[in-house]
C-alpha cells in the first residue's frame, strides 16, 4: 500500500475512493493521510467517514459529492466545520445528486465529455452548481440535463479478490466502482485476497474490472474496516456511531488520527490495536456455482 500510494497518488490529484457503504478502502485513505498528501480534490458519492478523516487531516482542497452524512448515524463534522466555518480550513465544494455523480462517472468511463439525464427540473442544485447544464435532443427537440464527465487522476477500488494482474471480482453492492475505475487515469485495486488467475477464469462473469486498466494490486485483508466486505466481515457500526462524537471535536479527531493513522505504520498495526473487530467476521452463506461447460 505504501508503495502504491507513493507512486500513484500525488499532491493536487483528483482522487476517488469509491464503494457505496460497501468496500470503502479506509486502508488507502489512511495511507494517503500518513503520506500527508495535500490539495487533493476528493470525489465520491458519499464522502463517508474516510473523506471526513482526510478533510480533518488537511488532505483536501475540494470535495465533489452527492450525499455528505454519516450513513444511518448523523453528520460528518470535519466536513461541516470546513463548510459552515470556512475561515479555519476552507474547502471548496461541488455538489450533485447521486444520479448526477453516477452519470459523471459513466461519462468518464465511456470517455464522453458529458452524460444526458432527466433530472434537476425544479431543484435549486443547478443554481449553485453551474456545471449542471443541458443539451437539446436532436430527435425530439426536448432539453435534457447534462453533467460533465469525471475523469479522476487515480481511483482506488476495494474488492473481495483479484489475481496478480488486477482482474478483479466483486459481489454484493457494486455501486459505481467499475465506472469510476474505467474513468480513471490510474487504478489501484486493494483486495481481501489475492487469488490464482485460474479462480478468476473459472467464473469470468463475476469479473468487474479487467487487469488491463489496473496499475497496482495491493493485498490488504480487512482493508475496508470500518466499512465492510460481503462474505468477509460486517460493517463496524459501533465505530460509525462513535465517529459522531470523535468528529465533533477537532481535538478528539486529531487524537484519533494520531493513534490510529499516524501512530501506526500500516494496516496490520491498525488491526492489532483493535482485536475486537474479529467479532465482525462474516458468517457462511455460500451460493452454488454455475456450469460454464459447452
Amino acid at each position, binding site marked *: 500500500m505504501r508503495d502504491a500510494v507513493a507512486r500513484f497518488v500525488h499532491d493536487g490529484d483528483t482522487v476517488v475512493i469509491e464503494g*457505496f*457503504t460497501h468496500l470503502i478502502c479506509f486502508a488507502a485513505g489512511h495511507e494517503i493521510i500518513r503520506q500527508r498528501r495535500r490539495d487533493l480534490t476528493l470525489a465520491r*458519492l458519499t464522502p463517508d467517514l474516510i473523506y471526513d478523516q482526510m478533510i480533518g487531516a488537511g488532505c483536501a482542497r475540494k470535495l465533489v459529492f452527492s*450525499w455528505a452524512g454519516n450513513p444511518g448515524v448523523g453528520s460528518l463534522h470535519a466536513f461541516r466545520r470546513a463548510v*459552515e466555518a470556512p475561515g479555519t480550513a476552507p474547502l471548496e465544494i461541488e*455538489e450533485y445528486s447521486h444520479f448526477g455523480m453516477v452519470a459523471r462517472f459513466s461519462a468518464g468511463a465511456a470517455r464522453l465529455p458529458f452524460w444526458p439525464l432527466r*433530472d434537476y427540473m425544479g431543484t435549486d442544485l443547478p443554481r449553485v452548481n453551474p456545471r449542471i447544464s443541458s443539451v437539446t435532443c436532436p430527435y425530439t427537440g426536448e432539453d435534457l440535463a447534462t453533467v460533465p464527465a469525471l475523469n479522476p487522476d487515480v481511483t482506488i477500488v476495494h474488492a473481495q479478490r483479484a489475481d496478480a494482474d488486477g482482474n478483479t471480482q466483486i459481489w454484493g453492492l*457494486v455501486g*459505481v466502482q467499475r465506472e469510476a475505475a474505467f474513468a480513471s487515469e490510474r487504478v489501484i485495486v486493494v483486495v481481501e485476497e489475492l487469488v490464482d488467475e485460474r479462480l478468476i477464469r473459472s467464473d469470468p462473469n463475476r469479473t468487474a474490472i479487467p487487469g488491463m486498466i489496473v496499475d497496482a494490486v495491493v493485498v490488504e485483508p480487512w482493508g475496508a474496516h470500518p466499512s465492510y466486505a460481503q462474505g468477509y466481515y460486517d460493517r463496524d457500526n459501533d465505530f460509525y456511531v462513535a465517529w459522531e462524537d470523535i468528529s465533533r471535536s477537532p481535538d478528539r479527531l486529531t487524537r484519533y488520527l494520531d493513534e490510529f493513522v499516524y501512530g501506526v505504520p500500516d494496516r496490520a498495526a491498525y488491526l492489532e490495536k483493535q482485536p475486537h473487530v474479529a467479532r465482525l467476521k462474516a458468517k457462511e452463506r455460500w451460493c452454488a456455482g454455475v456450469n460454464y461447460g459447452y
Partner: protein
Amino acid sequence: MAAVAARELQDGEVVFVGIGLPNLACNLARATHAPRLVLLYESGAVGAVPERLPVSIGDPALVTGSLMVCGMADVFQCILQNGRIEVGFLGGAQVDRYGNINTTVIGPYARPKVRLPGSGGAAEIAIHARRTLIVAKLGPRAFPERVDFVTSPGLRPQGRLRRELRMPGAGPVKVITDKGILEADDATGEMVLAALYPGVSMSDVRAGVGWSLRCRPELAPVAPPTEQELRLLRDVLDPKGLFLKQ
C-alpha cells in the same frame, strides 16, 4: 407514523426505500398486507428481505437473499428514470407548503447556518417516482412556508406545474406526520390537512406548520396502530428502538 405509512403501500408495488422509518414501514407492509412488495434501495439491492434491521441503505443484510443486486447506474437509469418506481419515500429537514423538500442547507448556500447532507438520490426520486410519500415530524421550523433550498421538488417547483417542467412522477401526494396526514390539493398543489390521528386536535397540527394550513371539509379518521402492527414493529422489526424512538 410507520404504521400509517405502511398502509399507503399496495401489494406488488415497487418501492424505493430510504433508511429509518420508511424502511420500517415497508417491512411492516411486507409482513402484513403486502407480502409481494418489492423493496428497492438506491444502493442496488432489489427485492431485499433483510433479516435484521438495516442500519444504512448499504447494509449487507439487504444483499443477502435479495432478488438482484445491480450497479447504481442501473438503479438510476434503467429502473428509476425508466419509470419503474411506483412509490418513493422522502424525508427532510424542511418540507414546505407545496411539498418541496430541503435536505441541503439551512441558511444561504454559500454561508450555511447548518450544512445538511444534500440530495443523495432524493432529487431524482422526487422527479421520477410515480408518487412520493413524505414522512416527517411536524414543527414550525420543519414545515416553513418556503424551504431555504429546494433539494427535492414538490408540486409547484419554481411556481410552475410539474408537467410544464416535464417531471414524469406525480410528486408528493401525502405527507405523513406524527400528528396527522397532509394531502396535496389537486387544484392548487398545496398541502392541506386530510386526517388527524386519534386524540390530536387541529390546533396541535396548526402549531407545527409555518403557513396558514387549510383543511379538507371532512377529515378522514386514522385508525391507531393495531396490536399486530405494534408487536411487529416493537418486537420484530426494530426491537432495539433504533428508529421507532424518532
